[in-house]
Structures are given as C-alpha cells and as structure tokens.
C-alpha cells in the first residue's frame, strides 16, 4: 500500500488550498452584491470551475494519478457535452424550424407576469 509512488511525492499544503477555496467561496457569495447580473454569473460559475479544479488537483491528486484517469473524467464531461448539444435544440429552445413549444412559452409568459404583479 505504501508502494504507491506518489506517497513519497511532496504534497501541497492542504490548509493553504483550503484557505484559497474559502476565499473563493466568499467572493462568489459576494457576487450578487455587485448587482451586475452577467458579472455575478461569470464570477459564480468561473469560481465554481476553479474550485472544482483545485479540489480535483490537490485533494483528489488527479495530477499524480495515471494520466488516463484524467482522460476518463474528461471523456465523461465530453459525452455530457454531446448530450447537451443534442438535446438543447429541442428542450432549451421554445421554437424551431416548423415547431413551436407554445406550452413553454405560455409558462414563461405567465410566470413573468406573475412576478410583475408580485413586485
């Protein structure tokens, strides 16, 4: 068990990584305070990816694992991307060539109206 080669490799300072993660979390929570929607979204999701990367790299030691483990995980994400690309034209859009999702449009409309009344 201790014959894992990486057991002898110098490990990052985990506490330092954790501090970075927590700071990032605070930044992403503060995002909405800017009041700029796109900036908030970019911040929130950009930071999520950075955090995921940090955890995967430093806590899960993906970088020390055999290279193909990374490939396996990336392949999973690529396939999910394919799924998204194949489904989005039908589900994410409410109108396309020769079809119209009137039910979804109505839901969006009535939902927005309700909120207008609410405010």
């Amino acid at each position, binding site marked *: 068990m201790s014959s894992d080669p990486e057991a002898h490799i110098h490990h990052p300072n985990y506490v330092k990584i954790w501090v970075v993660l927590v700071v990032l979390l605070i930044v992403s929570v503060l995002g909405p305070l800017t009041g700029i929607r796109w900036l908030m979204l970019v911040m929130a999701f950009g930071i999520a990816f950075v955090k995921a990367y940090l955890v995967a790299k430093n806590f899960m030691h993906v970088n020390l694992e055999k290279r193909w483990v990374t490939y396996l995980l990336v392949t999973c994400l690529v396939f999910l991307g394919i799924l998204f690309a194949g489904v989005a034209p039908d589900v994410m859009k409410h109108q396309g*060539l*020769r*079809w*119209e*999702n*009137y*039910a*979804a449009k109505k839901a969006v409309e009535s939902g927005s109206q309700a909120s207008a009344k609410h405010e």
Partner: protein
Amino acid sequence: MLERFSTGASTYAGSIDHLIFLVAALVGFWLIVAEVSLFWLMYRYRHREGHSSQYVTGEEKHLTRWVTIPHFMVIFCDIVIIVPAILVWVNVKQTMPPAEQTVRIFSQQWAWSFQQPGADGILDTADDIRTVGELHVKVNTTYHFELMSRDVLHSFSVPMFRLKQDAVPGRTITGWFQATRPGNYDIQCTQMCGIGHGLMAARIIVETPEQHSAWIRRASNPALAAGVSLPADTDGSKLAEVRP
C-alpha cells in the same frame, strides 16, 4: 419498389420511394456480396483430410486490401445515401411550399379531429369546419397542417402519402402535403398512446375540386351535415365521446 406494397398518393411519395429504392439497391448489393463470400468461403475452406489451414495474421498488405477496399466503398456508398436522404428530408420536413390551404389537426386519446376553413377559406373564423375521424382535402392542393396533441404523444401517419409526424402535447408542429390522387386513405396513429391506440383510426378523403366544394357546402350547413361535422363551439373533450 415500394409501389408494389403501398401506392403513393402525394407529391413527395415518389421521392421517398426512389430514395428507398436507392438504399435497397446499394445495401442489397452489399448484402449479396457479403453473404455470397461468406457462404463461398464456408464451402471452399470446409475441413478436408490432408488440408490444414493457413497462418494468416490479417496484416499482410496483399490481404488487408480485401478489407480496406470494401471499407472505402462502404464510405462511398454511405455518402451516396446520405446526400439524397437529406435532400428528401429537407424537401419533406424542412422546406414548406406556399400554403394553399391550412388545416389544424388535433390528436387525443383516441381520436383524430380536424379544423379547417369553411367557405371563406380562412382558419379561425366562425364558419370553420370541424370534423372527427375524417379529413377532407382537395386534390393537387398544397396543405399546411398544424399538428397538436391534447394529452399524450400521438403520431399522424398517412402511409399512402409517406407522411408521418409525431404530435407532442404543448407543441405545434407544422408540415405539409399535397395529395395527387383522389380517394380514401388511412390515417394511422403510430405512436403508442394508451389502450385505445389500435382504435385510433381515421380517414383522409382526397376529393376533386368539385366534390370538395360540395362537401364544404354540406359541412357548413349543420342540418345537412348531421353526424359528419360538429358545431364550431364544441370543444375537443366532447369530441372524444362522439366516437366509440
């Protein structure tokens, strides 16, 4: 080829039939090549006393070509099929010739109902004709249809027209057809829609212009049309009860 089994009765039936013939010819060729070589090799290299088999790795140049050449031929055939398949598809499903008539098709468990313009030729007016189980269309006229479902998935299929389109609740799906031959044809539901799926039959009646205008006159007059059409204010859920 398909004509032998089912007569085409719409403008695009011919192009779909030709596509099917093309595919049949190409894949038929490959099927025969593959089956013949399979059976010939089985016969030629059957076990006989005194003959032992050869050691072939399958990586020799002069032998691999027996796989690589067919390989490229298959790619070629694929392209030969892909191009007309997409052309037919674009013609039938993507582009819409200008409408001469528009009809709305409602599907529900387990009946087809139709709404089409009355004598004024405009949809959504008081004289719209609503029918159940029977769609009357004029021959050689481009129809646009708006397909809707009231409950579950259905599929509007007219085999003789080579027309098939699923109806999805919450969506309006448009399409078109132009009948070329007067007569009565089946409308099927080809998407499982519950226990009455097998009962969900309707007819599409292709009429000559004279017959069609006579039908519009009759249908617009409720007194004449008892049992054929229903008053315009009847809603779909009641329509279902009319049919057994």
